[in-house]
């Protein structure tokens, strides 16, 4: 369970008169050291993964698989605890002291915030794992009521009168920021990149939003369980999960022809992991997401895997569409955050609570 540090103590034996007490004292320390050493072999490791809202099911399955893999590889037992919430809120919790060994958040900006504000991991954290530390991707789709009674097919259907749109608050939810940028990217693409028109489009869209939850799971509840709205802007995996959980006879997924490429990143929180002595296993935990098994679990949970072979195997799970990136359309996350989501940004300008 732990290693003995007490056995490494050294007492000052330089003075001759001290030799006898040291010898006597060692009589007591020896059994102590023996008792502690007995426990060295039996390792039980705990990790805390602080993640965003819709990954509950993904990591529930993945944690079990990783624990089995790690046990077979090292003989050690590992228990991974999960914490879920809106990605922005989760990042703030880690900054405030939530002792995450790893974070698996909705967007890189939130991990950047942990790096910049709390200095818990280096600024170049995204270079430490393949694919910019995003082992899987996703996108934003529409979940509508069965039969699609409002005939919603594309983003411009969302700004029509009498359409009620459910989406979380981009101030707190990573998924909401992806959805907002997906809508904005559509407007830019269809308006000849006229920012004023895009802003007008997004204003109309958020006029149709009656309520803002703090996270993706909350919005799913609002739409699917509370019966509010005509369409939910959801993570692709969250939409599939809603079908599974609330019934495919009640809802259906509409994939717009164009959406945003969401790249949820992962990272070891270096200082926390070092403090817990879990750096090695935390890195192994994230690396295993890129393994065949990790990628397959991601695909089964409707995250788009990076591994092409596994992506091909699960191609039926994912509708083909044009995916634009934050870098292409918005000049990267830092700029997008500054322009749209900081206080006084575009979102604050366009959104007026009903």
């Amino acid at each position: 369970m732990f290693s003995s540090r007490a056995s490494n103590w050294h007492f000052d034996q330089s003075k001759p008169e001290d030799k006898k007490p040291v010898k006597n004292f060692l009589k007591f320390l020896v059994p102590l050291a023996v008792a502690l050493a007995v426990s060295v072999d039996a390792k039980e490791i705990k990790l805390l993964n602080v993640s965003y809202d819709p990954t509950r099911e993904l990591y529930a399955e993945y944690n079990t698989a990783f624990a089995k893999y790690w046990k077979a590889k090292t003989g050690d037992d590992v228990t991974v605890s999960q914490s879920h919430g809106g990605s922005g809120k989760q990042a703030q919790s880690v900054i405030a002291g939530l002792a995450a060994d790893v974070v698996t958040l909705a967007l890189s900006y939130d991990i950047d915030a942990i790096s910049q504000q709390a200095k818990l991991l280096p600024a170049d954290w995204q270079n430490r794992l393949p694919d910019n530390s995003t082992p899987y991707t996703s996108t934003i789709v529409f979940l509508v009521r069965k039969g699609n009674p409002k005939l919603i097919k594309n983003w411009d259907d969302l700004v029509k009168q009498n359409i009620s749109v459910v989406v979380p608050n981009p101030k707190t939810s990573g998924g909401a920021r992806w959805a907002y940028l997906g809508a904005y990217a559509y407007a830019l693409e269809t308006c000849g990149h006229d920012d004023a028109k895009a802003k007008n489009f997004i204003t109309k869209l958020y006029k149709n939003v009656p309520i803002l939850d703090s996270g993706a799971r909350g919005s799913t509840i609002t739409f699917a369980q509370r019966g509010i709205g005509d369409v939910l802007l959801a993570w692709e995996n969250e939409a599939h999960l809603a079908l599974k959980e609330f019934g495919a006879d009640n809802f259906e997924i509409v994939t717009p022809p164009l959406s945003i490429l969401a790249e949820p990143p992962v990272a070891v929180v270096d200082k926390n992991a070092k403090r817990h002595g879990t750096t090695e296993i935390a890195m192994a935990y994230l690396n295993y997401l890129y393994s065949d098994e990790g990628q397959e679990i991601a695909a089964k949970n409707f995250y788009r895997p990076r591994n092409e072979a596994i992506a091909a195997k699960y191609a039926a799970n994912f509708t083909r569409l044009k995916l634009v990136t934050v870098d292409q359309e918005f000049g990267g996350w830092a700029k997008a955050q500054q322009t749209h989501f900081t206080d006084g940004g575009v979102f604050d300008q366009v959104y007026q609570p009903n």
Partner: protein
Amino acid sequence: MKDNKFWLATALGAQLAFTSLAADNTDTNRDADIEALKQQINALSQKVETLENQRALDQQASTNTASGQIQELDQKVRILSRERELDQEAAAGAAKTQPKLAVGANGFIASSADSNFVFSLNGLIQVDSRTFFDDSAIKSNDGLLLRRMRPIFQGTLWRDFDFKFMPDFAPSTPTLFDAYGNYRYEPWLQLRAGKFKTPEGLEQLQDDVNIQFNERSLVTDLVPNRDVGLQLWGDIDGGVMSYAAGIFNGVGDARNSSNAAYENGVEFAGRLFTQPFKSSSLAALQGAGFGVAGTSQNGTSSATDLPNTTGGTLAGYTTDGQQQFFAYNPASGNTIVAAGQHWRLSPQASYYYGPASLFGEYAISDQDVRNSNTGVEADLHNTAWEITGGWMLTGENASFAGVTPLHPFNPQTGEWGAFQVVARYAALEVDPHAFPAFANPATSASEARAWSAGLNWYLNKNIRLDASFSHTTFTGGGGTGTIVPEIVTRQPENVFFTRIQLAF
């Protein structure tokens, strides 16, 4: 609508018949009239049909409007309901960020929302009576006394740093008992620095609030009380194994540190205690524990650092009634000082199972001493042991950490708290080589043996009333003088104790 058609057709039919009868002589006119009438009928029928269709359309429109309004209202209600739900969630979330204040049986506790900062105020007040029998030579030992009056300030800073500050205002001069900081890396690895109990005697390590008699046994005469030092310690696997290893200034037997070192040599202290079945399913063995503790120090000191000397102001080798029965008081009046090695060893064990409790310990205090006037030295090997048993008459579980009554005292509902009977036997033997060079055999006893029995009444978790009797016999001593220890050792000690204890 069908009724309208019927009456219209009937009226038109009647009109047709009448017209036909009136013009039966003119066929041409008649045919023209008939045709005209037919046209009128058709026109009227069309009007009726148009009216009917319009009415149906109006009704449908009306229905659609109502349905839309209902749906709109339904959405509004759902949205309001969800907003309220989210507001409640937000309020609950906000409440989690507010500091918490609790007042209860565990004292006054204030903590930050995340519990990383905690401050608690507790207290212990013990009011005792001691009544001695058959000791007419001792005039001042009967009476009431404030045994302990301790405010206890303790808490946590930055989640991992604990502190405790506990003075005692019962002595004539307020004394600082505990004052330490503790870094808790994990429960199994902690570092404590300051003034606190040396990890040695089992009964001495039990909190004052939980000891089973008014005074600890004779064994506690041979172990240190509190000292200033640095200690690495921890509880492994929830207490299956506990360890402590530390460096201290060193204090004499039963002594409380004066907060400063009195010699250059430091004292090493260590303790291992295991409860191997604590986490097992063997209920009868879960409360079984045993261990060993020891200290070692090399140094010389002044007389006041020995257990006690005649005229000393601190309790040294004392009876249950806190009367001195042994002192380093040679008849010559020479001063005795510590002169080298001092080590202690204490194997110890405890067992708790349901209402039963049993614990015992053995202690050796081996100390080199010197008669400072004659230069004579000796290695004195003093020993003591005790065994204490208890039984909760009211069925509560006994434990080292105290008793929580199943039915707190409330006479109005016929509930009386918890009762416990306790018994103890203890003995202390002073090394025969102590006499006569280092202690006067005519006044100091070389051995004391004591049995005690008592009844403890736990009114609730905070209030406790105790009564006990203790009988101690001595070997040696006696004398004819009028000072301690001879007036104590002259006859067996018989003392009746009572205590009112308030702890929170």
